[in-house]
């Protein structure tokens, strides 16, 4: 029975929590109700059997237990008695909102709630990661390089604010939606990023987070015909499609030019490209759509040599107009190095690094090192890889730079064991 419940927790826990949040109007109550519902199931199901509609049973049980808890606590807080009555008498079914799966809509309500403009952005991200994606406070803290207590406080304050401002558990109306969507897409992107390329630590990615982000992106793309929602989904699918090829058996990073293209997930690429085409059809080229277009060029290329680098440089140019950043400039420079050769690439990279912003960014030095290597300027290449090594916070990335150093005949100064 424990296995059944564990499986149910993993598959439906978050959706049930979202529905409870709507029914109870409070995130903490929902968390407690979810826990109580599963505890009740652990007790009742071995005796009575697993109910036909397990999800509905859990939602209903959680709701009743919450009402009971509120009535008990009314002994020291009278306001809770009113709340209990309100929850008890309110309609259990969601108001308005079409959709065959009301639980899906509740997950969306929850994500929009967590990304509410009343909250500072960092709180939106933290709250979404915890309440929608089910990450632990400590995990979120690690992802943001913040102490767990500080992250806990951020989440506590966010919940308090939503309560104070009486923010409703409702989907934004059609007029508000595009603006609200921006914040949500940003959060989803960040979650994927964390799963795909963990900010620090020994392993390169966390498949569960990436899968969660894709799930959310898909939900958003399906509910909202906004091209950027499709663009984001396309981007995530195209990145994820290369997951198996990115890392070798030893967990080491495989650079793009060495990736076995046969390991690319063609089904994911097909879906990604289809979503991208949808997004492009709207002729509003947002940053996610452009990044997806870039990813598509890579994913569809038969080899690194046969990649359309000219198209890539063009796409980066569009991207930097829409969302200028030094990282975009860096990536454009790397594409330039492929289109025009390492000398041109190096010139551009040196220009960028002179600006100072990329000084502490390992990939910038690695890109430079790569150009130097291709030019046969090995001593300088080694120095640049040493710099990249020192700046890298990622074990597999660092091992990759050390590998390059060994190939150049150097003994890495930060050598690790086997």
């Amino acid at each position, binding site marked *: 029975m424990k296995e059944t419940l564990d499986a149910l927790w993993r598959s439906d826990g978050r959706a049930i929590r979202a529905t409870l949040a709507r029914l109870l109007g409070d995130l*903490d109550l929902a*968390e*407690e109700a979810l*826990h*109580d519902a599963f*505890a009740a199931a652990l007790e009742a199901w071995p005796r009575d059997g697993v109910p036909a509609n397990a999800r509905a049973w859990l939602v209903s049980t959680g709701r009743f237990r919450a009402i009971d*808890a509120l009535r*008990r*606590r009314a*002994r*020291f807080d009278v306001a809770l008695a009113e709340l209990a009555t309100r929850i008890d008498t309110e309609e259990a079914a969601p108001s308005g909102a079409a959709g065959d799966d009301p639980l899906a809509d509740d997950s969306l309500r929850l994500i929009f709630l967590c990304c509410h403009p009343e909250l500072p952005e960092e709180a939106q991200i933290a709250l979404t990661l*915890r309440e929608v994606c089910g990450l*632990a*406070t*400590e*995990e979120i803290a690690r992802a943001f390089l913040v102490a*767990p*207590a500080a*992250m*806990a406080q951020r*989440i*506590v304050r966010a919940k308090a604010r939503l309560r104070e401002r009486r923010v409703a558990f409702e989907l934004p109306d059609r007029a508000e939606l595009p603006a609200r969507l921006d914040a949500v897409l940003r959060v989803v992107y960040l979650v994927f990023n964390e799963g795909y390329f963990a900010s620090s630590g020994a392993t390169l990615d966390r498949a569960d987070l990436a899968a969660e982000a894709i799930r959310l992106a898909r939900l958003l793309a399906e509910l909202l015909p906004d091209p950027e929602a499709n663009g984001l989904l396309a981007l995530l699918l195209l990145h994820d499609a290369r997951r198996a090829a990115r890392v070798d058996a030893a967990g080491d990073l495989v650079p793009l030019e060495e990736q076995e293209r046969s390991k690319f997930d063609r089904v994911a690429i097909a879906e990604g490209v289809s979503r991208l085409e949808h997004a492009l059809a709207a002729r509003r080229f947002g940053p996610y759509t452009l990044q997806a277009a870039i990813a598509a060029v890579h994913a569809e290329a038969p080899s690194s040599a046969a990649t359309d680098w000219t198209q890539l440089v063009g796409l980066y140019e569009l991207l930097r107009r829409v969302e200028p950043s030094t990282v975009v400039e860096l990536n454009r420079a790397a594409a330039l190095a492929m289109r025009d050769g390492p000398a041109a690439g190096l010139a551009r990279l040196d220009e960028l690094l002179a600006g100072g912003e990329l000084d502490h960014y390992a990939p910038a030095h690695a890109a430079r090192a790569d150009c130097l290597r291709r030019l046969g300027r090995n001593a300088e290449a080694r120095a640049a890889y040493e710099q990249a090594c020192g700046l890298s916070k990622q074990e597999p990335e660092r091992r990759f730079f050390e590998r390059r150093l060994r190939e150049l005949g150097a003994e890495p100064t930060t050598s690790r064991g086997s």
Partner: protein
Amino acid sequence: MRYLVLAYGDRSKMEKLTKEQFAALVARCKVHDEELKRSGHLVSADSLEWDCVAIRPRGGKPTVTDGPYAELREQVGGLILIEARDLNEAVRIASLHPAAHLGEELGWGIELRPIAAGCHQ
């Protein structure tokens, strides 16, 4: 994951309570204690006697003194262990403790400490 909940109180203020005042307080605590127990997250809960002994290394040898380790206005009066999936859930559970609701004038309060996986760095 397990978390430690330390319930603090001002001993001198509490010792000034009359028997009736103290009984009334205990009665009010009961409601909260029950909530904590019902949560299903409680591993253990104990009240502590005020009497304490401090043992410190002095020249590499244990030296015993009576009284608390640190002279603070509030001292630990309760020790609770809870099980929670993360720090925020632990905050929610720990907030059920009476010292999070009552005893403001008696210096009551809670300190929540995650129990470390390994040794302190």
